């Protein structure tokens, strides 16, 4: 089990390396325009070239990447071009905001989807139609519109919740919860739609299997069969979808944080890329990929625990 986990971790790190190479390479096409905007509109071509030489951007991309990687491995992601603050500190400051929204949304999504999906698959009839209806609405309404609609109803019309802003959990848990209710709701609706459909489908497939009937002939109650046997076997594919959902929510938080003016990772990344702040962009990407790797590893480990065949792979 431990070697399985280590193998998955090693694969994840290779992946992180590749993602950073590809991002750096793609960004290298914009170095010139970034430097130009750094110097302002009055700068001449010669000035831009001189500044690029200054910053080492005239060297081969691979050499520049090697420099970045070398520093990154020691925990130094460079300084922002525009604010000069160290990237790593700026990112970790804002990560808490994003994670408190995304992780909360992910957990609620998992719980709600399993409840809805399992109920739909085991009860059928009205429960099934209701779950499919909820799922369909989640697919149909773009989450952007949903977010704005929620702000309009709950913040502007009813004034129950703040429309924008963020209160840290450590400062005031009540206000923290209020400040993330709408962002979390906006993020999780689409996730619930996808995951509920997945859980429902996997449960339906699993409930048709022969072993379910055989367990019934042994006198087991349906509840025990579902909880101890069927759910465990249906969980594997659902967990994979959940890890993809994390990715989607991380992306979605970009939009959501801008709509709700949350001082998170997403709005930070957005401003950095508007300006072309290369060190910040690289830092954002690498941190995002590392988060994805951690989540995937957690999912892999859970899959290995659930499914004995996955352990040997």
């Amino acid at each position, binding site marked *: 089990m431990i070697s399985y986990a280590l193998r998955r971790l090693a694969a994840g790190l290779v992946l992180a390396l590749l993602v950073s190479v590809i991002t750096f390479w793609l960004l290298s096409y914009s170095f010139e325009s970034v430097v130009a905007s750094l110097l302002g509109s009055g700068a001449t071509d010669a000035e831009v070239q001189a500044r690029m030489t200054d910053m080492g951007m005239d060297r081969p991309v691979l050499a520049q990447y090697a420099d970045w990687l070398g520093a990154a491995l020691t925990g130094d992601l460079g300084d922002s071009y525009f604010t000069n603050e160290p990237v790593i500190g700026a990112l970790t400051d804002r990560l808490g905001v994003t994670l408190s929204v995304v992780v909360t949304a992910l957990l609620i999504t998992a719980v709600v989807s399993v409840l809805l999906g399992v109920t739909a698959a085991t009860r059928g009839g009205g429960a099934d139609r209701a779950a499919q209806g909820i799922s369909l609405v989640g697919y149909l309404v773009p989450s952007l519109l949903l977010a704005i609609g929620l702000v309009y109803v709950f913040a502007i019309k009813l004034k129950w919740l703040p429309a924008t802003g963020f209160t840290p959990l450590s400062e005031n848990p009540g206000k923290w919860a209020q400040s993330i209710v709408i962002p979390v709701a906006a993020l999780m609706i689409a996730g619930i739609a996808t995951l509920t459909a997945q859980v429902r489908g996997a449960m339906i497939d699993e409930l048709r299997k022969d072993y379910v009937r055989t367990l019934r002939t042994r*006198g087991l109650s349906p509840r025990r069969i579902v909880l101890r046997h069927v759910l465990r076997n249906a969980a594997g594919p659902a967990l994979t979808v959940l890890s993809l959902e994390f990715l989607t929510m991380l992306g979605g938080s970009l939009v959501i944080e801008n709509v709700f003016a949350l001082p998170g990772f997403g709005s930070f990344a957005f401003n950095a890329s508007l300006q072309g702040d290369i060190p910040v962009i690289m830092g954002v990407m690498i941190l995002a990929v590392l988060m994805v790797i951690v989540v995937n590893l957690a999912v892999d480990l859970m899959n290995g625990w659930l499914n004995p065949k996955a352990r040997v792979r």
Partner: protein
Amino acid sequence: MTADTTTANTAPESVAQRISTLRRLARNPQAVITASTLMVIVVAGLLASVISSHGPSHASLDAINAGIGTDGYPLGADKDGRDILALLLHSINTSVVTALIGTGLALAVGVPAGLIGGYFGSRVRAATEWLFNLIMTFPGLLLLIVLMPVTKGDFRATMALFGVLLAPNVFRIVRNQVLGVKNELYVDAARVSGLPDRRILARHVLFAVRGPVVIASAFLAGTSISVQAGLAFLGVGNSEVPSFGAMIHSGFANLYVAPSQFAIPSLLLGIITASLVLFGNALRDTLEGSPRKPQPIVTPTPRAATGTSERAEGLLVVEDLAISYESPDGKPNEVVRGSGFTVQAGETLGLVGESGSGKTQTAFAVLGVLPPAARVTRGSVRLDGRELLGLPDREMRKIRGRTIAYVPQEPMSNLDPSLTVGAQLATSIRAVEPMPRAEARQRVLPLLGQVGIPDPERVAGSYPHQISGGMAQRVLIAGAVAGRPHVLIADEPTTALDVTVQAEILDLLHDLRKRLNMAVVLVTHNFGMVADFCDRVAVMRQGEVVETGTTTETFDAPRHEYTRMLLDSILDDTTTRSDAPPRADAPPLVDGPQHTDAPIGGKRTS
């Protein structure tokens, strides 16, 4: 009865079938409504400059925040004095271009990669899979935004990038489909006839996988459009390009002054994405059959049985049992009509018939585990004189495992793949006799020993995929007899096993029957097995029991024409157990003269 409709239809369809698919689609109201909605919207976008007199960026100071219905501004104007109708129509065009680029690139990358990854060997497959897993690890939206310095904010470049990020979805669909059809006969035939791989992929395989790809395209188009709207809302990209996202953004800022500026583009965007999703769903239903329906785990309580005049006596009595399923056109389809037999304590009954004769359905009805779609329409099942039909599931649960137990046909699929054998047996033990888990675990080893497993400890710690089929069948028998039942229903318990193992399992059942003094109902198609094992026989044909009697009587003097026919066919039955010599009065086990008629040369195809 639960044929999987999604995989059934993988052979290439003829032109006639394709036309009928279109016709079926035309009969689906959801498909027609959503497709025509989309069509009207696209055409309106194409005619933008005809419908609206203003250009999308034409701003007039007089028209700022003009209301709906203002002369020349049928939907009003925004805070910069631009015609909302004109903006809306041109935004449609942006969305169409977005959908075409996003979907087009996803298909252009995903389809060929999926074909290659699914068709060629495992190394190519592993490489493509690895590549697309890498793409999937990219946080999509984040990448689109951080690469703004590269794309220079052009929405077309952004959507091209997004198309590549969507490609893994297409890749997976195509690869799985190709893996499914790769070994189909017609693809094999094409390969044998010397067609190059390239041609096979293009002509045969691509043809078979197009359905799911078309369905996926509808969803990808919807995703592309909403992502582009989200990005434009954020202000990513050129603000001169008319788009729903930019309109929603400007309307949102002006929400208190003129809510319609926000509501109108939101509504149209919602209609477009919803239509695409609903159209995709309709397409899926038409091409792949209706969606899977859940099967509630508990069978609805069957209707109370109809009384019969003479009450037969016995441990287990089944009388005039009829089971029907609802067919797709709504009419009941009776699969069992008049099944009945009696089993005395300690007796062995062979329930014999060809496949599809209703043997297994009868067995499931006795156990109360028929699929939910089944209805017991009449009859009676009595255990020790107690009527079982109509008992609520809660009551039946006390009987299952304790009084009646069941051994299935296929050992592997009847074990939970994720739990060790020991854990599964402990569950079964606790179901018939509540006790702490630790105690149940201790009882597992003697139970495994009882069914002739030589190293119970190793088997108890193994997962089902780690043990052989014969071993798995012993485990299932152990689970069945854990509650010391009075009646054991064994449904073709040896059919899925090797011939040598078949004999061992049958011997084990024989042995357990004597030791536990159980009555056994042996469901089988094999008269040889009945001859060896059973005291009495019930012969089923097309849902009816046509003959019952003692084994000797039935073998010596079959009364029914069908029984005679089945007995004669033992001649052909090569799966008869081979360890014991056939009964003296049974026909010898040699190839009959029928076999010489078979075209021997036909086997040499290679």
